[in-house]
């Protein structure tokens, strides 16, 4: 890939940037989930690898979070954008060269940022932990080049309209830039006190609501119709989804701070808007599941469809939790407990990751024109991910309910810790399964590049039979 950095744009083969992004994303996924499993082991067995600053939980937690969000999830998004945007516009990516540079700068910036976080150089603000110069790096050297490529490709499209997926891509990549600039104002201008606390969660909420959730959904809007061969069930519902994301998902930031002394009107407003997140959620889930009409056999037979539909099915409990757990009565019980940790993993490791995994499978096979090396390993990956995630989610949800009960009924804290112990072990096992599955995936994709069957011109990879 590095040889394309200084090549002429015309000499770079189509899809080079997307392939670079795809393999980077999988690698970060392996690293991020490996760190997650290691962190989980420390919560189950605190004396496992102990007394060293660089492997202490407090230094590694944020590295795990940023490796999976900015490494895995966002690079998989970039991969999907560089593959799907031109495909939907019946054109080429505006600049492969910019894309390759984007992927390189992304990896460099993220490695630098994670190293600094690991060393303890942090802003002390959850989700916006990076020091401000890394935030600026992300805006100008990561998000902007991606945005320019996506917008330019859409402008140069050869189709008349813009498909749903591309509305989401074009707007989300704009919104995430705004979120990074505005959400980090406390660091650029040293805003303090409640303003700082509120903007921290304004950032955290919107980076999920205006970047991760809509882009993951947009990917499903491409994968399901493309692979199943059915047209999208309803363009109108897609409109409803898009506009309700922009209007409703961008406003409930304050519901993350229900127990802080924020203005009461703001908390009430955020809570109502938070329930309205169900509008885009229901629109998305129904649209995707109805698109599957008559093709449900593919849910069993086809790996990409199975991953995407599973993502969509997981969006149902995700949004039911998300809509209601932030209302005052329920938030009172579960705030600050493992329930929230389970919910966050349902969003990122459940819904969003499963949609992106499908996109990376589909995109890498299509762009490299190679059939997936092994279906068995692909199936293994799916079940490792699903069983690992489910173990994690169930155990953390139970642990969260225990913590909530302990909080409400004034149980001495150490009794809560003791009661949670078995679930911490289950959490660690779940995380380890996910990590193992991802190692399998990286091997499978690597072998696909090296030894996958060549997909003939004009054919989709899923039209070919598997050989292993």
């Amino acid at each position, binding site marked *: 890939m590095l040889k394309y950095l200084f090549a002429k744009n015309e000499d770079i083969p189509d899809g080079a940037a997307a392939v670079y992004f795809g393999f980077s994303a999988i690698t970060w996924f392996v690293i991020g989930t490996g760190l997650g499993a290691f962190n989980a082991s420390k*919560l*189950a067995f*605190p*004396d496992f690898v*102990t*007394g060293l*600053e660089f492997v*202490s*939980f407090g*230094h590694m*937690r*944020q590295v795990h979070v940023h490796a999976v969000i900015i490494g895995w999830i966002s690079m998989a998004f970039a991969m999907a954008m560089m593959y799907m945007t031109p495909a939907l516009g019946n054109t080429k990516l505006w600049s492969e060269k910019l894309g390759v540079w984007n992927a390189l700068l992304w990896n460099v910036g993220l490695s630098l940022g994670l190293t600094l976080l690991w060393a*303890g*150089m*942090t*802003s*002390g*603000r959850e989700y916006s932990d990076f*020091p401000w110069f890394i935030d600026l790096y992300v805006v100008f050297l990561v998000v902007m080049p991606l945005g320019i490529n996506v917008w330019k490709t*859409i*402008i140069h*499209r050869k189709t008349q309209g*813009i498909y749903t997926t591309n509305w989401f891509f074009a*707007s989300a990549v704009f*919104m995430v830039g705004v979120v990074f600039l505005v959400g980090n104002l406390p660091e650029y201008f*040293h*805003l*303090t*006190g*409640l*303003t*700082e*606390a*509120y903007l921290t969660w*304004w950032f955290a909420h919107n980076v999920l609501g205006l970047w991760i959730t809509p882009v993951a959904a947009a990917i499903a809007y491409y994968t399901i119709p493309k692979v199943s061969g059915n047209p999208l069930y309803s363009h109108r519902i897609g409109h409803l989804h898009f*506009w309700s994301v922009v*209007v409703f998902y*961008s*406003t409930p*930031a*304050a519901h993350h701070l229900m*127990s*802080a*002394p924020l*203005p009461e009107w*703001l908390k009430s*407003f955020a809570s109502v808007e938070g329930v309205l997140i169900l509008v885009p959620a229901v629109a998305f889930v129904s649209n995707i599941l109805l698109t599957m009409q008559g093709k449900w056999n593919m849910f069993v037979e086809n790996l990409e469809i199975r991953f995407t539909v599973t993502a969509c099915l997981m969006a149902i409990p995700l949004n039911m939790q998300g809509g209601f757990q932030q209302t005052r009565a329920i938030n*009172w019980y579960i705030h*600050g*407990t*493992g329930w*929230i940790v389970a919910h966050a993993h349902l969003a990122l490791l459940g819904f969003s990751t499963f949609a992106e995994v499908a996109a990376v499978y589909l995109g890498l096979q299509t762009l490299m024109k190679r059939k997936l090396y092994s279906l068995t390993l692909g199936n293994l990956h799916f079940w490792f991910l699903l069983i690992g995630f489910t173990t994690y989610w169930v155990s953390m949800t139970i642990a969260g309910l225990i913590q909530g009960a302990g*909080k409400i*009924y*004034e149980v001495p*804290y*150490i009794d809560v*810790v*003791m009661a949670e*112990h078995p679930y911490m072990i289950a959490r660690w096992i779940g995380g380890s399964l996910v990590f193992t599955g991802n190692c399998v995936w990286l091997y499978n994709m690597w072998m696909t590049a090296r030894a996958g069957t060549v997909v003939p011109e004009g054919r989709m990879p899923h039209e070919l039979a598997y050989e292993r």
Partner: protein
Amino acid sequence: MVNFREYKIGARFFGIALGGSMCITLFLPSFDFRNVNATEVALDKQLWAGWESGFNLDDPWLRGDHRPLRVTLKVDPKTGQPMEATTAYVYPAGTRMPNGVDHPDILGAMVQQLSLDKGRISEANESQGAVFLLSSEPQGDGTKQFYIEDASATKGWTPDAVLKAAGDENTYHAAYGKAIFVREGCWWCHTLLPEETQDWQVFGAPPMLGDFNGESPTAFGSDRKAPDILHVGSRNSSREWMMMHFFNPRLVQPYSIMPRFDYLWGKVDAKGQTIDYDKWRSEYNEYVEGQRVTPPEVPMYASNSDARALIDFVLSLK
């Protein structure tokens, strides 16, 4: 933007929708935040914690450079005469002034006016350093209004004289301690925000609206894998307990899942002798396996160690 033309209406509506949401979630709350007067808690906290506890250019690696100190004075630093115990906040030369002194308008109108007129905080400057006091003015309704007083201006106290008068045993490195709290990720498990549940009764009252002016980062935390510690200094003020708990939490709480923070002791103990961690750990393992009756002694931390600063910080959370 030639090919976006057919999306003119959509693009405008997008701008209106996103702009409207920003207006409601950013612009409108800013009016509420601006009108808040800093409470005694907020003034105390920003004075001992200093300008910034997270990443900043004065101390990028959060290793304790340019941090203010909190001292308890028992003698007047100018005259040497005994006086009533007084808390002073010392900003040695080159230390960034606290936020309320840098930008008095964040204190709220009433506190700002008192701090400027009676506290003379506009005379404090970074190159000479300053000493601050938390002073109060009685109000008509019987309450007290707190404000920041620049004692270098009003009393002529210099940072060096105050530190000398207080002595090392009455000096608290709470500001560096909070930076360690941020650096070591204590806030990933210990929140600083008691919730509106019955845990008021266990963990103390939740903070009030004006308790945060000037604090950065607020580091509320979101995940309670451990007890809330906003008021921990009121529940447990034992330095010895804290020392054992940080060195190895299992010494005082066998079922704790907190990591060991023995590495904050550094290389040497209070007497300057090298700490033999391997020996300590093997003796501790013998104790756990029942081959020893008592665990090994926790070494006394050196006065310039990270452990001391962190304990100073935790005990200042009242």
